[in-house]
């Protein structure tokens, strides 16, 4: 199975009925496709709406209705629109239940870096710093390594997004929970061993005896 789909499926299990959710651009967007039956969540989008729906079918696009990545979007019944100050009032004010973001690095303290690689790629933080600071639960969804280079490290050397500890890291190999004691390996994917995870992680992992199979 495609790694990204695997990650999105696992992240989707974290969504609870009634949650207000903000999904980052890219991999996190895939989560919408795997929401468990019976779970109804509401999507918030930084550019100013609550109640965003799926991408429109061809011919149903509206130039004034887009997601935070600039792609055409739709509105579900009960949706509403607002300005950017209100959008971030929801985010920063602690009214958002879950945000799912991509990551470049996460370290042993659970600190996330995801907005720039100095001298190379400088997209900017957009809404990420506010999302990580303000959401009730922060989930980082990312591939375990960047073409073999570990992304889970002892200490981020890339600029941090926030000093708030993220709540969960989901990769194609495993699920890790950052705690005050360190990074705890919670689940492991069926096709990997604990050693595989260790060999691809540049941080100390706390490995309990009851590491579960990912997604079960």
């Amino acid at each position, binding site marked *: 199975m495609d790694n990204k789909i695997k990650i999105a499926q696992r992240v989707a299990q974290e969504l609870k009925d009634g949650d207000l959710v903000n999904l980052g651009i890219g991999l996190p967007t895939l989560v919408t496709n795997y929401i468990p039956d019976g779970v109804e969540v509401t999507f918030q*989008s*930084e*550019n*100013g*709406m609550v109640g965003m729906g799926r991408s429109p079918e061809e011919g149903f696009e*509206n*130039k*004034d*209705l*887009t997601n*935070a*990545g*600039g792609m055409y*979007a739709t*509105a579900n019944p009960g949706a509403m*629109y*607002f*300005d*950017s*100050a209100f*959008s*971030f009032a929801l*985010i*920063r004010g602690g009214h958002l239940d879950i945000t799912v973001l991509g990551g470049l690095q996460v370290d042993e303290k659970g600190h996330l870096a995801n907005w720039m690689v100095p001298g190379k*790629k*400088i*997209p*900017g*933080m*957009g*809404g*990420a*710093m*506010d999302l990580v*600071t*303000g959401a009730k639960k922060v989930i980082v969804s990312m591939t375990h390594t960047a073409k073999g280079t570990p992304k889970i490290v002892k200490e981020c050397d890339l*600029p*941090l*997004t*926030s*000093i708030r500890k993220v709540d969960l890291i989901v990769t194609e190999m495993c699920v890790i929970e950052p705690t005050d004691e360190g990074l705890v390996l919670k689940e492991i994917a069926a096709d990997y061993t604990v050693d595989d995870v260790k060999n691809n992680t540049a941080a100390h992992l706390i490995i309990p005896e009851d590491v579960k199979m990912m997604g079960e």
Partner: protein
Amino acid sequence: MEVINAKKAADLITNNSSLMIGGFLGVGTPENIISEIIELKREGLVVIGNDTSFVDKGIGRLIAEKLVKKVITSHIGTNPETQKQMISDECEVELTPQGTLAEKIRAAGVGLGGIYTPTGVGTTVEDGKEVREIDGVKYLFESPLSADFALLKAKRADYKGNLEYNLTARNFNPIMALAGKTVIVEVEEIVPIGSIDPNNVHTPSVLVDYIVVGGNK
């Protein structure tokens, strides 16, 4: 309020002006006014906006034409030209978290001397800023942000200048309407006073100086 054309709007803007420009990746951006600014080659502009859009859209076009000396924004990732000019020192880029940018603009517009936000504490955004602890939580002080002009986009205006925005094209426009010294709004149509249900007026006419009827762009 006065109804003018896009060329006259651009003519009001002098070189080195600071411009707040509404929009989110070009959605809700006054494209016709931007075209005329490019036509008149207004240079040395300081631009404040959510993002620098794409090379061929919105704020991105002003950057591509090298008319911008400084941009205060949250995201430049969709416009490679911005990063190129940032690295070559042709355009100064001040990256600001999106929610902070919104509140800095809002602070200027609503008469506040700034805001304290937890966003950015302990990151490079904190550099050079006051950190204050309130009830055990650390906050950064962020100063207000105003501009000579706010260049906005709305769906429609009436002949008084009351504005109605459309869907997610609202974004930064209403807060910038408070924070620009001169407020110029491009609309798709202008309608008789009273045609917009008062419940649907998002920005009151008292904030609007000029309306440009720009069509459906």
